């Protein structure tokens, strides 16, 4: 009688040991890099932190499959000083049966950011080996920002060119008007100049002797 009681008490943990083992078919290896992520604020990996992890996975499974998972459904084994371990998920209806790998993967992927935040880690420091991360969609603004800067610059340059071309035309027109005004005064100015001009003697053509010869 006592033997039977002991047997039934030990059965779950034995089963658990058999269900959860390294390289289990339905299990995942998890690797945490707490010190890399948090530096001086890193927490110690102990039983309570593990409990939190199990709770997070239970939440992810419940959320994805819409069944009630308990912390005891998440079995963890083969912990190493690296802080890496294997875990498997048992079905809430039948603790001796494991939930399929694909369901676990989908559940984890769906709630990945939530699990990361619970453990204060990110995709790089909380690794589920074999589960691809779901990265945030790239933010695409309606107009690419470079086009805006380009538009501003080419607008300014265009305005500069137009301004310079117009100013050339305006200056030419102004010059034409001035030349037209000068032409009216030209004859009078010429006569004034000639009157006051005595002329310059070109010494290569003739001897320059102003005084008339006696």
């Amino acid at each position, binding site marked *: 009688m006592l033997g039977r009681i002991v047997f039934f008490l030990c059965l779950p943990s034995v089963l658990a040991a058999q269900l959860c083992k390294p390289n289990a078919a339905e299990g995942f290896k998890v*690797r945490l*890099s*707490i*010190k*890399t992520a948090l530096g001086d604020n890193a927490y110690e990996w102990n039983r309570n932190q593990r409990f939190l992890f199990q709770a997070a996975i239970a939440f992810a499974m419940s959320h994805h499959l819409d069944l009630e998972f308990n912390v005891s459904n998440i079995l963890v084994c083969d912990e*190493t*000083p*690296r*802080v*890496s371990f294997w875990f498997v998920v048992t079905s809430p209806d039948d603790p001796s049966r494991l939930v399929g790998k694909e369901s676990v993967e989908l559940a984890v992927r769906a709630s990945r950011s939530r699990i990361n935040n619970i453990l204060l880690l990110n995709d790089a420091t909380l690794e589920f080996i074999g589960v*691809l*991360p*779901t*990265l*945030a*969609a*790239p933010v695409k603004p309606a107009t690419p*920002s*470079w*086009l805006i*800067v*380009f538009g501003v*610059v*080419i607008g300014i*340059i*265009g305005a*500069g*060119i137009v301004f*310079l*071309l117009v100013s*050339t035309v305006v200056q030419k027109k102004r010059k034409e008007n001035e030349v037209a005004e000068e032409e009216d005064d030209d004859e009078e100015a010429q006569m004034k100049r000639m009157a006051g001009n005595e002329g310059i003697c070109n010494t290569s053509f003739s001897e320059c002797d102003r005084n008339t010869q006696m």
Partner: protein
Amino acid sequence: MAKDARDNWESPTQFVLACVSYAVGLGNVWRFPYLCQMHGGGGFLIPYLLMLLLEGVPLFYLELAIGQKMRLGSIGAWTAISPYLGGIGLASVVTSMYLCLYYNIINAWSFWYLFHSFQSVLPWAACPVNSNRTGPMEECEKASPTQYFFYRETLNISPSIEKNGGIQTGQALCFLLAWVITYLFIIRGVKSTGKVVYFTATFPYVVLFIYLIRGMTLHGALNGVKYMFTPKMEELANPTTWINAATQIFFSLGLGFGSLIAFASYNQYHNNFERQAIIVSLINSGTSIFASIVTFAIYGFKATINYENCLDRTRILLLNSFNLAEDSITINNVFEMIEKLNTTFPEQFAELSNKLEDCSLENELSTAVEGAGLAFIVYSEAIKNMPLSQLWSVLYFFMLLMLGMGSMLGNITAITTPLRDFKFLSHVSNEIVKNIRNRIFLQSKYFGKSFCVMLVVFKGLLPKLICTNTTFFYNIAGALQAKIK
């Protein structure tokens, strides 16, 4: 009379700044540091300075003399010396045309990078996410984010020169902008060019100085600078070193393209160009050396970061394979731990050996890059690792733009000046001539990166031709000069 009077620089300073702006270009930033590294660091300065003395200054002086005395562009000036030499002038105009076609493409790339720097996260800092959002794009992971941004998002490069990839709209727009700005700068001839060079000649020095301070304070910068200045004298025995020094002087000073003749033709007749020639040549070489200090500081920083990343990856590999606690291996004791683990777990370690990388700072430093790869890939990689990277990025690409635009001014002037000298064209308004020529040049947007590389390699032939001819005719030019004076 008013129409025939030649435009002049408003002051000799404008002329000097124009020459400096033309000579100090992208080659000083991306070719000279590479040559320094390839040919023995500090030791390369010996052939470089020797060549400057033997061929750089004399040819520079000769070109300025021809331009200033003849007061004509390259075709007219050479024809005036001897009708048989008119071909040199024509050849230099054609070379300048080819140069203009591809050089503005590099300015277009600078614009593209400049405009993309106005974002909260620089686009070349991280790989974009792939279509099912499970990780970075495969192409980007195999290369690096900076290479991916340059070759895929900027150029969208086709697999080979035979395959035509089509026109990239973004690049075409930036190229259009580059030509429009060039047009704005030369719209009034030397009157507008003279004002622009005040900025294009001086701004790069401001940025280089800021980068010198920033570069020297970066982690690991001194590794790079030390590497550069340790001379390897045995490189001087290699004839390639001397050839490269000579070629670099040619390209750097921009000899033989007709630009210097064109600039000098707008000088006052009795301008003292002897002193100016020496000043500009020295400034150009000084800038090369200054820029290579900055470049090597950046190299050192990049190499140190890559080396430390390599060590970090090795550390994580060891931690994960042997399931050790995180703080048992740090970056400093990676190599000791490798030894220890090799002796304690030999079989397990043997399985790792193909995944284990060889991390060496020497290897990282000795990967020398030149050209567009240095300017757009290596530098942007270094910039993304600096704090406040948007600011550094904007400063740097604006500097590249100023360097490129300054050189473009010289190239364009080399073409417009001889054209203006032809009487039949001077009746047509200057602006219209430039406008038409610009439209023709815009067609060159069909050229891609491979063409650019090809053109860079072959444009060197002409200056060598000119060199032999000019040294032969040096005496004639000198005699002419004496006569005219």
